[in-house]
Structure formats: structure tokens, C-alpha cells
């Protein structure tokens, strides 16, 4: 019996013409899966994810006017200082735009909160938020930025500002600028050899005597481990 006939016997439907076998060569990547719009997450994405990222990146949630307002607001929350730039410079408004679509439960509080700013400003000053003077703007913000001092009738606006503060802070501190400002030192290959000595001293902690000889020694990281029958490392 040849392979083909043999095959037929295996199939239920007998319409099928072959079995699927993974071929691990990277050359034959499916071309149509490559993202058309830059900016989707890289690394082992499945089709569902690529399509979703593409769709979210191609849609726009925020209106021009909302973006303008956000540009002002995020820089009130995370302004530039001597050490680093501001939230808008760090791309936080683009991040917020994306999150509105990625986590749609943000949409209503965000849109509603931005509208509230205008109606409140109108009530108090007869102007839209963006038309307020800087002092007036800060008067409005101070009403909603301090949850424990805010008036009870401001509660809705306070939660809007909490969301905005969260997103702005996270957008800022997950940007390249934010990593630098934070002083984050990780995400780079190294040979971990414990907390620096001076730091341990400052915090009044020390490594337990009992384990000192067992901890990994960086200079042995290249040597293939060998054990005796009792599980003691002997090489």
C-alpha cells in the first residue's frame, strides 16, 4: 500500500488531503500577519491579538478638543521639572487615547469628566475650561484633586481626577523618560550577587551566616553543576 492509500484509511472524512505537521523553519512566516500600523506589542502574538492591536491603533476615541484639554491636564499632574520633561512630552496623551479603546470602561468616566470640567467652569466663571486663566484652572483642579478635602458634591469629579492621575502617572513612569526619572536600574543582563553591602548596612540587615557558603557565587556561573549521590554540589 502506498502512503496515499494508507493515509485515506486514516481519515474520517476522506476529503482531507493531508495531515498538518509543524515545520519549524522561520522562513515561511505568514506574510499577512505583519502589522500594518506600527505600535502593536511585539513578541509571539497570535492573530487575534495582532488584529485587535491594529484595530485599536486605527481608531480614534478622543476628539481634538478632548486631546487639547488632556494636554493641559496631564502636564498639571506630571509637569516638567529640572530633572525631566512633562507628561505630554512623554507621550502620555497618546497612551491615554490607546487605553480608552483597550479598556473601554474608562471611556465614560473620562469623557464625562472632561465635560464636567467645562460645565463647572461655565457655572463658576462663564467660560470653558481651556479658556480659563491659569489661576482659575488651578482653582477648579484644587476642588477635585484632593479626595479627603473635596466637597461631597464633588465626589464624581474626584473619581474622574483619580482615574486621570492614575493614567497620567502610569503613562509617565512607563515611558523612557519616566524610567530615567525613576532611576530604574533593572532589565539588563547581570550577575546578581545580593543587595550592595552599603545598602544592607544602612538598613541593618545581613545575610544569614548559615547560607553564606551555599549562595550562588558569580564566578561559578560558568561551571556545569555536578553533585554527589547525596545531592551535595561537588563541582
Amino acid at each position, binding site marked *: 500500500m502506498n502512503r496515499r492509500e494508507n493515509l485515506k484509511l486514516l481519515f474520517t472524512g476522506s476529503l*482531507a488531503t493531508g495531515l498538518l505537521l509543524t515545520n519549524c523553519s522561520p522562513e515561511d512566516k505568514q506574510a499577512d500577519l505583519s502589522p500594518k500600523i506600527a505600535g502593536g506589542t511585539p513578541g509571539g502574538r497570535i492573530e487575534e491579538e495582532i488584529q485587535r492591536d491594529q484595530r485599536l491603533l486605527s481608531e480614534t476615541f478622543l476628539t481634538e478638543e478632548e486631546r487639547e484639554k488632556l494636554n493641559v491636564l496631564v502636564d498639571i499632574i506630571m509637569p516638567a521639572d529640572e530633572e525631566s520633561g512633562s507628561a505630554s512630552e512623554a507621550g502620555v496623551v497618546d497612551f491615554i487615547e490607546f487605553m480608552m479603546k483597550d479598556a473601554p470602561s474608562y471611556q465614560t468616566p473620562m469623557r464625562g469628566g472632561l465635560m464636567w470640567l467645562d460645565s463647572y467652569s461655565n457655572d463658576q466663571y462663564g467660560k470653558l475650561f481651556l479658556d480659563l486663566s491659569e489661576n482659575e484652572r488651578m482653582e477648579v483642579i484644587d476642588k477635585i484633586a484632593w*479626595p479627603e478635602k473635596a466637597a461631597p458634591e464633588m465626589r464624581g469629579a474626584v473619581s474622574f481626577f483619580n482615574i486621570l492621575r492614575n493614567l497620567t502617572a502610569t503613562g509617565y*513612569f512607563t515611558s523612557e523618560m519616566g524610567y530615567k526619572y525613576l532611576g530604574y536600574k*533593572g532589565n539588563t543582563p547581570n550577575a546578581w550577587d545580593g543587595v550592595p553591602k552599603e545598602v544592607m548596612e544602612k538598613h541593618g540587615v545581613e545575610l544569614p551566616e548559615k547560607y553564606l557558603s*551555599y549562595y550562588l557565587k558569580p564566578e561559578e556561573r560558568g561551571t556545569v553543576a555536578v553533585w554527589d549521590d547525596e545531592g551535595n554540589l561537588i563541582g
Partner: protein
Amino acid sequence: MSFEIKSSGESYDVIIVGSGAGGGMASKILSEAGLSVAVLEAGKDFDPAKDEDRTQLRPAWESPRRGAGTRVRPFGDFDQAIGGWDIEGEPYTRAKGTSFDWFRSRMVGGRTNHWGRISLRFGPNDFKRKSIDGMGDNWPIGYDDLKPYYDRVDKLIGVFGTKEGIYNEPDGFFLPPPKPRLHEMYIMKGAKKANMPVIPGRLSMLTRPINNERGVCFFCNQCNRACQAYADFSSGTCLVKPAMAKGKVELYTQAMVRSVTTDESGNATGVSFISKVDMKEYKLRSRVVVLGASACESARIMLNSKSKTHPNGVGNSSGMVGRYLHDSTGADRMGIMPELIDRERYNEDGVGGMHVYTPWWLDNKKLDFARGYHIEYWGGMTMPSYGIGFSMDTMRKYLKDEFGNPSPNGGYGEGLKKDIRRIYGSTLGMSGRGESIPQFTNYCEIDNNVVDKYGIPVLKFHYQWTDQEVKQAKHMQDTFEEILTESGAVLLGEKPGPETMYGLATPGRIIHEVGTTRMGDNPSTSVLNSNCQAHDCKNLFVVDAGPFVSQADKNPTWTILALAWRTSDYIVNELKKKNI
């Protein structure tokens, strides 16, 4: 990854369903014994060493959501578990008044691509709990039966740790453990005051090489993203791929197995599967079928394998398939360490998991619940990602201003920016992971009203915690407060009380689900014999966590691996003896 549609007339010695921990180990051992092996995997190929699959070392800004979780990756956008709690087109249901959440990964290597790599052996007591407290059942095997396999798993895969000589926390062949991080040292101090042990962790990352094929850990703290150096264990990179390279294993990806096919005498003849590529059904033949699709999925396949000889599903003449489903208990608590505010910066990544932990340390005879738990610790200056800077509306008060007064919550501006920088790396927490009592009444079955997008009937879950687990969670909460307080931390959030079952996680949430095809000597109360062979189908085996009689207060995977190796040895011998 693409597919080549290739004719393949051969039938195999063994078909293995699933390429996770159990399936991966079986593929290696069975193929090395000279058997021809087909591995059928529902997901796609995955290899973290290929740049197109790599998320390791990517900073948050390479993700438009800055690493936030998605439906497909609930643990984060860079996490390498493709699947999640809720997979498009693959539903499951729950009986009214009960709850169970089911986490699945659909990819070569299954959930071992991102698992926490806490690699603990079960101890002698863990196989004989009924003899100790009268609850549940004993395993038909004991620690001595598995010890040689644990030893081999240690040496083949690599695990760091220290020999402690604790009776029910057996030592193994350990690589050197990494030194503790700063928050871990605070916890060690606190736990000492509370009279609790904290010992070096036991995790499967290569702090030193074990062979020349896999690289050594370079301490990026991102094992959940899968390691491009293969320095952490995952089944795809450490078992399936090396076995394939030796020639005897053929991997079918995107192959969703529906059922085990059987002949008139009730023996397995192979499997029937749906190719996700053309949505057609295929059959593949083999002398032996090995299920490693994960505990619940293997039960599902068996229940869906109905025939004249197996009217209730293959392996299910006892009606036990799906029964005794159980997960570990879990609860958590968090604190903030004032001493760690304004801390000095250095690279504190370490391995992708805790460097120290607390094994169960008490005697249940003196407690009001039956089984123990271990404690996992977390904290440190981890990579900033979605969520950093959140909650300053409740957390800012923990920061003192220059006059020593608490800052008002909320706010904005340069001061807020500074405060977020100051608070970074000062929160820490812990998670208890404990043993529950397996119940006949906690189970999964086929939901006859619902099919998935492949037309395969889905699982329906029935699960409720008992008083034992609730009391254990209460004990965890007391312990957490004690350790945090003794370490000098300020407790965050309210202590969970009876209204939330003391923060006890929903069944399934700890992702240690086991027991659905349990082993036993009595064919009327168990599905498999002590060699993980179906009582009523001698060439059908299960190599995932289904065979577990009880899930100890240890994470299950090291035991899945040891058991799968033992089962594979048994299969090889039985084939040699022509018994199957």
C-alpha cells in the same frame, strides 16, 4: 508560525495530547526509548529564542498598553501565556451557586512558558493524608516511589535551593540559590520574630549550567516572559524541542483533540482531532495514547470519548472522571515598608520569582483546620509597568513631607511626581498557597447544551469550598499580619473577614487544578491505577495533574514531571513485555 501540509501515513507508537509539563516529559522519555511519538498540541509553535516570539527584556513602552493585561494575556501584555481565563470560542460553564475559573494556555509548552517555576517536591506525608487526618484519600503510591524520579527531574531540568533536612519538604539536587533581595531580608527578620522559618526558594532557573545546551540565568526577573537563553524550565524549550531534534518526535500544532478512539475490545486506537487550520476532523492512530492536556482538559477528552464499550466515556466506568477536582487555596496581603521609602537604586531584578519562602511550619493537630500552606513573598524594585503610580489617592499619605507630616492623599504636580519616585519599591506582600480537601461533589462534567467553536462539548464546573479551606484562609490572614507587622511594614487595605471567606481565592484561581482522573487501587473509586494507566483501557495513560489524589501545600508541577517520567518508564516496559 506557519504550517506545511504534509502527508503522513505512518501511525505512531505513541500519541501524546498536549505539550505542557506532562506531555513534554512523556515526549522526551518515550522518544528516547526509541518509540515513534506524535505530540498533538492545540496551540501554535512558540520559541522565546526567536526574536519574533521574544518579549524578554522589552521595556514597558514597547507595549501600547504598557504591559497591562489583556483577555489573551491576563497577567500582562508581555506575559507568555497565550490563552487566559476566557478563550475566544472555547467557553466553559459553571453550575448555579458554584464557582470555578479555568486558566488555559494554547501554545507549545502550555502553561510552563510563564509559570512561576516554584518547584517543590511533595513530601512523605503528602501522599498519605488520610492516614494522618482521616480526610480524603491516600495515594496508592508513596514518596519512595517518586523519589528516584524527583531526583532525575532535578538533574535534567535544574532547580535551585538548599538542603534543609525538613521531613515533609524533601531536599533534592539543588543549584545554588540567589541571595535574598532587600524586602526579603526584612521579611526574614520579621518572620524570625514571629518564630516562622524563611528559607531560600526552590525554583527552576539555572543559576549554574547543568549541560551545554541551555544557557545560564542572567537575572532579568522575567521568567514569565519565557527565557531566550532557555535558562528557566519550560516544556517547549527544555523537553519537546530537544526531543524533536533527536528525530523521533513529530509535533502537530493547532491540533485540537476531540476524543480518544477505541476498538471493539475497548482499547485505544488513537485520537480524533480538529485541525484549526482547515477546521476539518482528522484521525491519527497509535499503539498507546497519553493524555497531557491538563487535568480538566484530559478529563474532558475522556468524557467525550464515548463508545459501545465505554458508554460514559473512556476510562470512566467508575464514573470518577472529573470528580475530586481541586485547586490549592490562596489568599494574599500587602503592606508598605516605611524603611524602603526613598530607597537607594540598584538592579534588584534577580530571578523571575521569590528568592525566599516559608514552607508549612505548624502542626495541624493544634489547629482548627486540616492541612497546611506555604507562603510566597513579593516586592522589590521591579520593572515599572502598567499600574505604577496608581492609587496615590489612597497611598500618598504614607509619604512623609520634609517636616515628618503625612502628605495629603491625591494631588498633582512636581511633588506628586517626586512622591511616586519615593514610594517606588516600598510595597511588598505575600501569598499563601495551601492544601484543600478533595471532594466528590467538586467536579467537572460535560455540559450537554454547549459546544466550543470546534463543535466539541464543553466542561461544566461544580465547585464549593468547605469550612476547612475557609478556616485555613483565616489563619493565613492572621499570619500575614503578624509577619508584615514584625517586619516593620504598615498593613495596606482592610483585613479580609468572613464576608469574603477571608480573601480565599475563587476555586481555580491558583491554577493548581488537579484530581480529575485520580489514581487508586480500587477501579470503582478511581480512574487510573498507580501507574497512571486507565483501569478500563490498558493502553490509555494520563500524565498531567489529573492523577493526583491530593494536591499538597506545594505547587504541583514538579510532581507532574516526576509522575510523567515514571508513567513513561512504565509504558516503555509494558510495550517491551508486549502487555500493551
